[in-house]
């Protein structure tokens, strides 16, 4: 018990928010995609992921690799195949509905009016086909609809399916309390087990029900019978009340009589919320407290707020070795950019500054704990920038022909102004060129070389040349001396 309270006290308030936020996201995903194919596929992917983790823990290399590939492919397939469902959830609903809305439909379909209208049409032997849109998008399976957007009424339904109306042969799509489209052509089912007396309307209703989660109501022109099609099944309906009940159940409408159903739905949502919370909590603990692992990283030191007039001359260390602790999963996925060591030079002065690397100097991602730092103190020497004009000397290299003597050199320019730290410049009295080769020299001539600025923090002042022209003079040595040299070599 004591250890439990100790464990609770180790939780930070940010951890609680972390768990609560992700639990709510998972819960809302369930609410929004409940009853759709997307949720079923997502559950399938989650199970695959679970298997993959088990395979990893058992060191099943090929299996875990295969699962990983399948999950990656499945994630892409879900987005591509179910893009319409995802779009309809995210676009059709308001932000409030996505974040907080109830899964019940905001606008109720007047099922009593529809039932009465349908059986009026049946009595008159007027054929009709009504489609009640659910969560699936219908635009990719239906064609040639005429926009209507009329508020649903008995008179309107009767007039649409009046035999002389040009659109009476097509289907009417009902969304909420409105008829959105009329004269819609539905995909026809190719099933061979349908009764022979079913006509085109029945086959169209069956075709739509096979492909989507919509509900279709068919009134037969020949028999006056009413048939409901949903989920690939067709069944006859006898009477207005039965149709109203069927519509209410199928479309998830709030009917006063269904108090029991409402309670059940609330219970279901509560259970979903609890499962989401428990699942996220388990995942969170798996990630953050799974197993205490230690890693060591060499992190380059970054400097900030350097006074503009100063430059860093020297540092006692360019990297610090830090030891980090946390769960293996987090540490394994730790990217180099997620751990940063920064020293604030805002209060630094010219000369040597000692900085103690504290926890505040190190940026770590959540769930990662700093165990040790080495070195814990870094010396940074800063200097003020200054200018200095310095003479240039050629840095000759290689071997000059033994019979020749390099007797004179003229350099252009003879001096160059450089910018650098004041203390560096105080120690410098000459600038040297890059190496100039002697091996190829046979007679007097000219070459052009670059300056070798060392240390690298030195810069040539604007307006000064960076390339140096060297005019050299070589002379033949006196024969005796050359001979002596040759013998010496």
């Amino acid at each position, binding site marked *: 018990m004591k250890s439990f309270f100790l464990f609770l006290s180790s939780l930070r308030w940010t951890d609680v928010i972390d768990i609560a936020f992700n639990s709510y996201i998972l819960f809302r995903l369930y609410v929004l995609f409940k009853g759709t194919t997307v949720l079923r596929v997502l559950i399938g992917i989650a199970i695959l992921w679970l298997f993959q983790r088990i395979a990893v823990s058992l060191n099943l290399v090929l299996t875990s690799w295969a699962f990983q590939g399948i999950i990656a492919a499945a994630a892409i397939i879900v987005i591509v195949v179910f893009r319409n469902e995802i779009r309809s959830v995210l676009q059709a609903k308001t932000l409030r509905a996505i974040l907080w809305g109830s899964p019940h439909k905001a606008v109720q379909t007047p099922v009593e009016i529809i039932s009465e209208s349908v059986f009026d049409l049946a009595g008159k032997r007027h054929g009709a086909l009504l489609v009640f849109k659910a969560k699936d998008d219908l635009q990719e399976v239906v064609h040639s609809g005429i926009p209507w957007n009329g508020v649903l009424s008995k008179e309107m339904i009767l007039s649409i399916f009046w035999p002389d109306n040009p659109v009476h042969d097509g289907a009417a799509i009902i969304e909420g309390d409105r008829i959105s489209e009329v004269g819609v052509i539905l995909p026809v089912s190719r099933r061979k087990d349908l009764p022979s007396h079913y006509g085109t309307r029945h086959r169209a209703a069956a075709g739509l029900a096979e492909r989507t989660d919509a509900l279709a109501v068919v009134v037969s022109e020949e028999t006056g019978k009413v048939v409901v099609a949903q989920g690939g099944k067709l069944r006859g309906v006898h009477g207005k009340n039965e149709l109203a009940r069927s519509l209410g159940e199928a479309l998830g409408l709030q009917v006063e009589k269904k108090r029991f159903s409402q309670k059940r739905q609330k219970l279901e949502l509560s259970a979903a919320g609890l499962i989401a919370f428990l699942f996220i909590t388990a995942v969170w603990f798996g990630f953050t407290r799974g197993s205490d692992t230690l890693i060591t990283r060499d992190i380059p030191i970054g400097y900030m707020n350097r006074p503009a007039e100063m430059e860093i001359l020297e540092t006692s260390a360019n990297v610090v070795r830090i030891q980090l602790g946390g769960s293996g999963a987090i540490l394994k996925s730790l990217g180099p950019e997620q751990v940063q060591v920064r020293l604030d030079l805002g209060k630094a002065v010219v000369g040597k500054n000692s900085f103690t690397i504290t926890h505040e100097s190190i940026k770590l991602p959540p769930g990662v704990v700093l165990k040790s730092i080495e070195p814990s103190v870094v010396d940074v020497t800063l200097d003020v920038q200054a200018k200095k004009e310095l003479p240039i000397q050629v840095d*000759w*290299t290689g*071997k000059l022909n033994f019979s020749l003597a390099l*007797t004179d050199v003229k350099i252009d320019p003879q001096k160059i102004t450089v910018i650098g730290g004041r203390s560096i410049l105080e120690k410098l009295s*000459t600038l*040297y060129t890059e190496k100039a080769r002697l091996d190829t020299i046979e007679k007097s001539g000219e070459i052009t070389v670059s300056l070798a600025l060392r240390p690298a923090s030195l810069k040539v002042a604007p307006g000064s040349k960076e390339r140096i022209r060297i005019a050299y003079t070589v002379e033949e040595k006196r024969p005796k001396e050359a001979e002596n040299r040759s013998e010496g070599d």
Partner: protein
Amino acid sequence: MKRLSRPAGIYFGVFLLLLAFSSQALSQPKDTPTSQSEQSHTDSAKLTLRRAVICEGIKDYAPTNPAIVFPVSIGRVFCFSYLDPVPEKTAIYHSWYYRDELITKQKLSLRPPRWATYSSIQLREYDKGPWRVTITDQANDTLDVLRFSITD
């Protein structure tokens, strides 16, 4: 750092002719002024460096093979200085620098009315690179800077 730790005595040799020869012999006695007036004129003149070169050797009080690039295989290089006039007994300094690092500073005594002198360093394999010799007087005024390189 390694260069600094080397004993200065081994590092270079300075051969002063001051005590070994008479001043006349060293500084070309045929040109030595003898009259009193000339002597007083010399005393009032300023110490002037007439010639300064880096060379491979000294022969007959004159530099041999002056140049600005020397192979390390010659073993030793010399800095020759000829001053005329030398108004009074004084000294100059030859400061040998490898890059910007002072390797040695040698005091060379001078005697009127003119004087030739030199200093030298012994060369090691790791002495390859740019060198310079700064010639200064006793007031630390720079009389000349000679730049040269030791190469393969």
